[in-house]
């Protein structure tokens, strides 16, 4: 699978996750798996939508940074609701989903032009090999 195809699938999965989370919230469906969906949504969708728009050259960095940014966004939104004394978690979740989707849709359609396109395409067939460069020199030991 090429990096661009992989990126499309990731964006599609995030849109699907956002859609499911939104549907569960809007319908207020009581289901055991709903908390799990909520955890996945808040840990992945907002941050990964922002970071994937930037198209970093390394999928691992992209996802890791996406999770960290999701936590930052979710924390900021939650603290803002507390600060203004309007605790509306359902509205916040739907709002985050709505805000994230426009960042993801162009990636599914392949019409986005974020930074790093060329680098990603060049690294197409080495998607999981971003750290191969130094393997031959393991005698060098730890970085200095």
């Amino acid at each position: 699978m090429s990096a661009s195809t992989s990126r499309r699938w990731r964006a599609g999965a995030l849109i699907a996750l956002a859609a499911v989370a939104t549907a569960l919230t809007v319908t207020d469906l009581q289901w055991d798996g709903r908390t799990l969906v909520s955890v996945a949504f808040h840990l992945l969708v907002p941050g990964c939508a922002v970071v994937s728009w930037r198209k970093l050259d390394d999928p691992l960095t992209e996802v890791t940074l996406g999770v960290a940014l999701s936590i930052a966004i979710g924390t900021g939104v939650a603290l803002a609701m507390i600060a203004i004394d309007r605790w509306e978690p359902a509205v916040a979740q739907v709002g985050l989903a709505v805000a994230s989707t426009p960042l993801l849709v162009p990636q599914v359609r392949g019409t986005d032009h974020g930074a790093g396109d060329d680098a990603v395409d060049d690294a197409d067939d080495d998607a999981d090999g971003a750290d191969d460069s130094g393997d031959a020199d393991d005698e060098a030991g730890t970085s200095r």
Partner: protein
Amino acid sequence: MTPVDAGSAARATASPQVRVARRRPALFAAPPRPSSSATLAAIAAWWWGVARIDLSSMSDAGLVSVLGWQIFAAFALLGLGFALELNEPRRRYVLAAQTVVLVVMVQGITALAEPHPAYFTAYLHVGFINEIIENGHTVPELDARFNWPGSFAFGALIASSGGASSALSLLRWAPVVFNVAYLAPLWMIGRSLVADERARWIALWLFVAANWVHQDYLSPQAEAYFLYLVVIAVVLRHFDGRTRPWTISEARFVPSFVSRPVAWVQGLGRHDSSHLDLQTSTDDGPFLLRVVVLVVATVVVSHQLTPFAILLVVAALVMAGRSSAVHLPVVVVVLFAMWFSVGATTWWISHLGELLGDFGKVGDNASAGLLGRLGGTDLRAAVLWLRVAFSAAMLGGAMLVALRQARRGAPPIAALALFVPPFALIGGQSYGGEVLLRSYLFALPAAAVLVAQALSRVARSRNTRVGTVLLASMLAVVAVAGVTVRFGNERFEQVTTADLAAVDWVYDNVPHGSVVIAPTRNLPWRYRDLTSFRYEPVDEQPLETVDEVLALVPGDSPAFMIVTDAQQRFGEQLAFLPEGWLDSITEELIDSGRATPVFGQDGAVVLRLDPAPAGGS
């Protein structure tokens, strides 16, 4: 050249078509390799072993005392599978899966074997989250932790938008989730520190096994630690000092006795590091820096200690010439100062003495976390000393590897910049006696990478078969030792059904506003109705006498005291109180006529404590 290295060299010259073909192994066409078979056998043995755990027979040694041979065999098999896989070229997905399996096997034992999630503090954190879910606000005056509410607010957002009325459902698997999450930034850190890929994988194994300090339950520090790792990983990989070298000579007004040693260290750190996988493109730099600042801001509003660890490490990386993000340390300070002076005023205004009282007392702060905890029964003491030995071996081993590399003219400056600075935290605060443990945790990623290089070298120094067996043995021993020390407190930290039933009885039957007493803090209470009752005592010292208990009973209404076996063991093992101390207090209270049992179930009792009769004491 090892098989991993040989594979790397072969990949470097292979055509794209060949590489694509190699990336698609026929998973089901060929018989399973020995490493996969060993891993599957490990999972089966572990599952069997977990199903046979009898928690009631646990001794003071903790969880290890009730583990059957199946669990030990599981770690041996997984270690063997992992060591075999390290000899296979290009099967990273298997190594990644084995590492995740290790996390589940270490952290998931209690999640599956125990009837309820363990550890009393986790329940209090649920109480903080539930307070936000129920009322949409924090209560900063209630607890210091509520002055850094970022993590609780995020937890409340997740739980309540998931339709849950309580965050209790997040407790059980939180340690597994956090430890799996740590793996990605740890891998990024590893590939920025060491070229030997085998050592990077071993470092992940070591980290999972050696992360015994129990800060990965549902807590702000667990989330902040993930963000700490992300910040370090991004700075190391994307802000390598080579992209924009900064030297101490650029700084004005720095006296020579400071600038000279710093310049010397920077000189050491500017050796060629082209053998490492560092992203030196500056295109993404501004974007990444903004993300890092946001992440640091999240840490600042979520946890008190972690911002200092980030500050120390990113400053050390700048000083060592291994970070071009020269302003990041200043940003950390400014963000912390802003939150401290605005968001956390409720707490620090009334606790300034407590905050600054330990400053500079390195010896006291260190001993509070080490010597102050050693004691208890023989089995308990054995586990505690094993913790000391295990941690000392990790830290000492890391120092030895660093010294060996320095003697060869290649000091691991970047790794040392991650490894040494966290211990400066000891000079600032005792942090409730935990600062030594926290420092160990912050230094652990670098320590794991350094020790992993030694293990990798030992395994390679013999022929493949002997080296593999040797490495597998070491990995299994480390994992078993990790489980032993990680769950050494389990006899009193596990939560029984009776414990929770007693707490729930109080919540369902006691009028709001009443005083609720626990002789020790080792009780799964305060996970709901955080502000509806007066919980006593508020400090960490156990109630050791009847008089101390009765002093908490109001003059005009009864109080309710929750007594559990776990609290008695907690007092015996951690506060070194006499055996049966809580039974004695309970009997004395009942004999005094002031206490009446109103609930009882399997070692958990609720006593109603009546006010002193008029004219009495």
